């Protein structure tokens, strides 16, 4: 990924992604990719390091990781396989190969974030997540309902939006579903992670501004741009973000849980 991306996003983020937990209101995020391994987990980690409540999912039918040849991927079941067990299996199979292609490194990171890959379609939205005591980004998402879903590929966005249509929106909760096209490799996932944090910061700022306005003022103010609600400002924030990250095409919709 070239240098056109990433300048704006790193401003508020220190080298290792850690920073002060400086605000009391937090949007809740959910990151989604195909296998819940690389892109969504990079996003999960970076958002958690930025102190956002975050969970993550994959929309594929199975967890697929590269194998010894292009036609022999390593395939695992969602929700039943832990990152740790995948790590140990690949480490036993061919440590040199899987270290060289970065898989062990990635799995090692993932097993410190949460137990294992979860499938979006199997996730029961709103089921309390109080048992996941070691998950990173769990604080604030005990209710199990995020405000923003960020997918990392058009196909995943389609799967998420279609799945939400299929579920029939039983919870009556609006959710912004945003896609950011990130290539599925470690380098682009890392760049994408920065972009996701940048977007999260921008969105959270808009949401906080809405929260700080109290009372009927909002009601009376009508359509003044600066007084617009968070929901209305999402496309605008995303448009501005897109200018900063022109190589990560974004799509947005407002859907329902």
């Amino acid at each position: 990924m070239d240098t056109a991306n990433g300048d704006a996003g790193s401003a508020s983020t220190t080298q290792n992604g850690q920073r002060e937990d400086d605000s009391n209101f937090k949007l809740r995020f959910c990151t989604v990719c195909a296998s819940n391994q690389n892109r969504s987990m990079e996003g999960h980690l970076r958002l958690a390091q930025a102190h956002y409540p975050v969970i993550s999912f994959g929309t594929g039918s199975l967890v697929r990781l590269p194998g010894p040849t292009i036609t022999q991927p390593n395939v695992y079941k969602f929700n039943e396989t832990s990152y740790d067990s995948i790590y140990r299996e690949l480490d036993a199979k061919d440590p040199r190969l899987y270290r060289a292609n970065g898989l062990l490194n990635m799995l090692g990171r993932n097993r410190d974030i949460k137990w294992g890959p979860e499938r979006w379609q199997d996730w029961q939205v709103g089921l309390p997540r109080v048992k996941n005591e070691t998950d990173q980004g769990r604080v604030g998402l005990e209710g199990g309902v995020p405000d923003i879903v960020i997918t990392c590929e058009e196909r995943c966005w389609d799967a998420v939006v279609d799945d939400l249509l299929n579920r029939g929106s039983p919870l009556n909760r609006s959710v912004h579903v945003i896609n950011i096209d990130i290539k599925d490799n470690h380098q682009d996932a890392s760049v994408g992670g920065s972009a996701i944090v940048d977007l999260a910061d921008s969105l959270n700022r808009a949401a906080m501004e809405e929260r700080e306005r109290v009372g009927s003022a909002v009601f009376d103010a009508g359509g003044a741009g600066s007084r617009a609600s968070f929901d209305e400002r999402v496309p605008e924030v995303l448009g501005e973000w897109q200018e900063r990250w022109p190589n990560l095409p974004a799509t947005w919709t407002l859907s329902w849980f």
Partner: protein
Amino acid sequence: MAADSASTPSSNSAVSIAEQLEQLGAARKVALENTTYYDRIVKGVLPIIGPTAPIQLRRWGAEFLAESLATPVLATRDKENLTIAVLDTLKGLLDGAGEDAIVLKASISAAASAYPVAFRWIIHNSYHTESWEQMSAIKSRIFQIWDGAPAPVRLSCIKFAQRVVLAQTPSNGMEQKYNGLDVSLNMMTESHPLLDARQLEAEATGLLDRMLGVLQESSSDALLVDATINCLSILARTRPSTSNRILNTVLNFNPLKLANSPMTPKTKVLVRSLEKTTRMFLTHILRRDPGNQMAGRIQQYVERLTRSRAEIFDEAGRKRALADQATAAYGDAKRQKAETDIPQFSIPPLGPGPHSLAAVFTITNNPGLQAFDVTQLPDHLVSRISVRTLAGIDQKFLDFAISGIHDRLTSLYAAGAAAAAASQPAVINAATAPLGVEEDDDDDYEPDLTPAEDTEQILNKLDNAPPEEAIGSAADAGAALPLGPFTLPPPPTLDPETASKLSQAAAARVFGPLSSLKDPGTGTRRPKAGINRLAASSYDRDSWLTLITRLATRSTAGLDDGSDNSNTIVKAEKTGPSGMSLGDSIRELLFTYILEDWRRRIEIAVAWLCEEWYNDQLAKKSGMVGAGGLNYEKCALRLVDGFLSYITAQDKVLTRFLAEIPELSRPLLGKLKALCADPTTVQLALTSLLYLVMMRPPVREIALDTVAEIWTEYEDARPLAAKYLVKWRPGFIELQTRGAGGEVPPPTSNMAVAT
């Protein structure tokens, strides 16, 4: 935990609000951990979050109510009690004039979850009018707020209306049975004292129109349009009375209207969002409800939308492609001057520095051709071009090109090995290697356990993957082709005998698929492909046999003659200890295969002999006949010998065989004479010969000679032979009888043995 009055904000009360929020948060966590506490905790917080509470508590409270009434951990039945208990507070929150938008949004969301529960409850408990009156009051208050409310509140109003429509229309029973989605007019009894089904449905129809209004007035408010479209799916799928109205409205909606206005970043997001949301909704309906009567219209609409979108958005993509070409200075590919003197070409050795794989194999100097990406061509085209080219290419040029590439690779290998000695080149760039393996399952994501994806897809992806470009700086020649460091262990040495055994085994394996491929004879007759038929292109048993016969006759032609004379087309037979050549092994197996069931496999025999004959002709033409000589005659004789000993009078295939094989010789036809030793097969032999006489003029003379010989040699065959000879070689018999002095000469040999 008494609620502080909102009217006296002070630093003291602010602290206590923060404390209260903390306590409330802890209580919420208890409810999340153990659902049995929900009832108690929700009822417990109601006094604290009422309409007179401070704004922070009201916000928290409204959101907590929305969460509690929506939670999937409680069944609809369990929520009844809870719902009835909160209605009063909800009504209070909604009634407050100038209420905060966040409180309103959450309260209406809670009301949307409460509505189906309250509706179901009143159906079954018609005596309890009070709570239904509260719910109705909430409903009318929400519809009153709807117009003119801030966007987030309107969002919730849309959703509330959707739940009302869902509850007050008859269902087709296709919805999931949880969270009140299944509450519908079907639950109503005709004689409900309080509710009138027709009235309720009329209200639902009106509400649906109001919801759809945002689409009809061609609003460009993407937020509200998206929110509306994204909650219509369940109505269209499970409430048949709403389906037509919804689909008609969506199909009349133009999501690309905004595209005409100036494209600010925000407009781009909005246009894209409206377009994709509309398309997702329609494709969703097409997929989940394929029998929908509007499917055709939906299909058309989606296609049209895709085209318009491509026009609006892909412009940028096209322009970028052109710009890339220009910056790469490939020149104007269309106006490249064609090279006139083709034979003049040289293969320059590659300079130092990294080269892509493509560069190594590129020998043209034409910059336009160098830039051409062959992988863009479809496979079948590539194979056709390759075959044509290989067929027509001058051998000298091919050799020249091969040696040129060979030199390049040798020098690169040397450079690579030298570089590898200094530093291990990264075989895989871990940072940029594609990670996720592409899946080909559609958006449905049915969990299937088919192990891997389409090989072709992966290869395609590989082709498109970037890492083949030159890596690294100019100095490092080794990095270009990381072939250096890895060597396979040498294979065990192979003596001629094992080699021959292995090649026999390999040849035998070629016959393996025949047993699994289905027999074409059993099925219906296949249509004749005619002259345009391409051999071995139908992937059935016939194709495989064609392949085998060609393997036997052509595969090693010109390759395994050990001598120095080049361009030998027919291979020389090596008769060392290694025994047969590969071609002969296959011939041997083919022979056995045919004889195993020769009556049915006679066609294969004919096909094989045709191939042998063709190959012999080529060999003759080139004037290079290998040490083994020509094969056709040998094989034909052997085959005839093989099945003649099994032949019976009914085996008409013999006639056919003789008629179809490409060349007949005296020795071959001579074999037929043996048949006449057996009186039962005399007729077969002579009829076959007669057929040849009549239908194959070129061999008429040989055939007649054979008949004549039969006449001479076999007493028993004379009557029939004579009949043919009289007709086709008049005077022969007279000549014979006269020559023998008026007597019929006795058979000279092969006296028929009575059987």
